[in-house]
């Protein structure tokens, strides 16, 4: 009795490590199966267009709102430091660097994860528990080519595009806030932002957001397709997918920060 209680903690740690290995392995297998279908491309074109619209175009309002507030908050947070060191000529550079390189891609990815990733896991999960995926297999339609590939491509392409849009909107948000709060003229703002920001700062942020998009896509497809246990299982896998993708985003952010340095 006491022996089993003694082993309870290591057993729990072991079980969670095994399930983690199971999930990471499953995602890697799913990704490799998807990559195999890239050459020659076997993607359902109609599904691709539908997902590009649903995931990208319909996320535009929420991404723009997020980006505008993010740009504004960056200037508000920098304001005490700026006034202390009287560094008004560095506001533009500081705010836009942080937004382009780090906070913009990160917040847009978290938003995208909540909106698109969760929805995707729910949709695929519902298809699994209502046996529509088995139905596809019975019709000799490859579920990876028909369901997974269009979603992965759509998410990676669209989060990339949305981050470009978000960068622009966040810049406008910071310029307006800087003008109203700190009396930084928009021209001063841009004059400090443009020469000190290299193209690499923007490109590194965009590469990051594409990696986040791939992360969200593979995670949500995996958890959606791995749904078990009927309707309550769909809720569980949506929850698991969103949390796993958020963790993945932070880990990927950490690694890519060092690699893209």
């Amino acid at each position, binding site marked *: 009795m006491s022996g089993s209680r003694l082993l309870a903690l290591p057993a729990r740690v072991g079980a969670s490590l095994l399930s983690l290995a199971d999930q990471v392995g499953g995602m890697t297998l799913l990704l490799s199966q998807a990559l195999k279908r890239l050459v020659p491309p076997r993607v359902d074109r109609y599904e691709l267009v539908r997902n590009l619209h649903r995931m990208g175009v319909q996320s535009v309002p929420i991404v723009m709102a997020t980006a505008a507030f993010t740009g504004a908050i960056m200037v508000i947070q920098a304001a005490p430091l700026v006034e202390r060191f009287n560094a008004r000529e560095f506001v533009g550079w500081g705010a836009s660097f942080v937004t382009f390189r780090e906070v913009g891609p990160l917040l847009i990815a978290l938003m995208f994860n909540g909106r698109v990733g969760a929805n995707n896991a729910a949709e695929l999960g519902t298809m699994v528990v209502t046996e529509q995926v088995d139905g596809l297999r019975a019709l000799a339609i490859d579920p990876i080519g028909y369901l997974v590939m269009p979603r992965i491509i759509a998410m990676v392409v669209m989060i990339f595009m949305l981050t470009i849009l978000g960068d622009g909107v966040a810049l406008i948000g910071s310029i307006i806030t800087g003008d109203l709060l700190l009396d930084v003229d928009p021209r001063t703002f841009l004059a400090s932002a443009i020469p000190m920001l290299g193209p690499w700062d923007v490109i590194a942020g965009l590469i990051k957001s594409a990696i986040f998009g791939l992360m969200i896509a593979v995670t949500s497809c995996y958890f959606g397709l791995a749904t078990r246990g009927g*309707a309550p299982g769909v809720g569980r896998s*949506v929850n698991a997918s969103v949390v796993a993708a958020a963790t993945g985003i932070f880990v990927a952010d950490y690694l890519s920060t060092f690699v893209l340095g």
Partner: protein
Amino acid sequence: MTEASATLVDSGPSALGRLMAPVSAGVNDIAGLFRLLGRTLTLISQGKREQGALLEQMYIIGNRSLVFMCITMGFIGAIITFQSAVQSQRLLPDLTMLGATFIKLLVRDMAASLGAMPLATRVGAGIAAEIGSMVVTDQVDALRMCAADPVDYLVVPRFIAATIMGTAVLIIAGAVAILSGMVIANGVFDVNFHTYLNFSMVTLGDVGLGVTKMVAFCAAIAIISAQRGLSTFGGSEGVGTATTRAVVGSSFAIIVLNFFISGLGYFFVPS
């Protein structure tokens, strides 16, 4: 029915109506959230609640999120320290103020705002999925039939638990972010632990502002996710939609609240 009225009916909503529809939907949505918040606060002030349910929710929301939050905020601390060190080296090679500035920013803003986003993902999705599946399996209607108020029975314990435990988890995760930043600063940039752990720039106002943000964000996560869960319809797909709306709604509320609280903090909490 006359000819004229028939064409009026056929033409559907007017252009103005179509344009204003999202606006009025948003206003209704926010009004509904404030009604639920008011109702929850009234029930809390009346002060009868189930201890067991509250403790269970505190365990689920707090203890179960702690590891996840410490991992994410640990990475955040490392990333931000790395980025800001690289950037400040471009301007001046002196890194002695790196820790002091980072800790001030973390206390004043990032521990709350960047921490609340993953917390919203985890706690918000959990609350919405749980209440949502209760709605679609008619358990909430069963509660009403037993004369138990779903807000009292389901929302109040989650609201209290999320506000208390969420804030506690965010504070612990913020401390983890400082530690991981310290390790990175020491390992990569040779900044002494002592030099890094410099709390001299943190004022009481900063701490107050940070904790205010944490409490506000956690309360917003609980109310928005509970409301999304209670308004679930349409079976298992509906639960997925409710989860999505909970995460998006809470994340967006965090960003908007942060904008307003930071703006007020800039004017009323000088640093």
